[in-house]
């Protein structure tokens, strides 16, 4: 009997279209025999969307940290003043 993580791995390869023809045929047959598998595919796709959402959120936090440092540390005064000058009304 296959472990659950190996089924998760199969679902992942199915979602990303990385299965070779033989594996894909076996998986299609499995889909017919196990109605619950469709459900797993749908939820796993949502899991991937959530991981992307998480990744983007973390990256935005990293970018914001850099922004705060550049616009508050004396070391980058020249840089921040130069930028602010662009937005100063004459």
């Amino acid at each position: 009997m296959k472990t659950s993580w190996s089924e998760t791995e199969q679902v992942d390869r199915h979602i990303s279209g990385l299965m070779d023809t033989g594996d894909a045929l076996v998986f299609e047959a499995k889909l017919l025999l196990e109605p619950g598998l469709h459900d797993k595919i749908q939820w796993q796709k949502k899991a991937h969307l959530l991981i992307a959402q998480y990744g983007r959120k973390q990256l935005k936090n990293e970018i914001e940290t850099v922004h705060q440092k550049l616009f508050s540390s004396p070391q980058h005064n020249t840089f921040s003043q130069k930028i602010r000058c662009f937005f100063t009304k004459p």
Partner: protein
Amino acid sequence: MMNAINDVGKLNREEAITALYLKAFPPVARYISRGGGSFDEAKDVFHDALVIYYEKSVEAKQAIDSNETAYLIGIAKHLWLKRFKENGQNSDLEGFDQPIEDVELPAGNRILHFLEKAGNKCMQLLKSFYYDQLPLTDIAETFGFSGIRSATVQKYKCLEKVRETIKQKALTYEDFME
């Protein structure tokens, strides 16, 4: 991973982002200020451009380093013009496609919040693999696995955990089902 931000290793991600910021933000800010934009608008546009730049370079699996700054500036200008068009201030921007896919799910933030508390290590592992697409050997080392095999097994166990959590939470947050 041949990516300007990932390439230099985890500890130096901040330095890589800083370097891109110092090089590319001044021309972007000048461009947006000339178009009548504010400092906050320039910041928003530039941050979105950095995210797109990062995702595109991860997807391409190669450095865009021949002219990475120009590429980043181009994305930012594109985003600014698009925003301009949406505000009805410009009418001729045909051919500009939408470069960023909306990945946000309804109720996703609430589920994310839960997962960050209940299984942040899993989320970090999955992010490294799927979002940053770091090599498995690097992931195994960073997360303290004995090798790529155990990192792979753990990755799928985590994916399964996230999948089941979403399914379970969807019963609570009905809008997630839509």
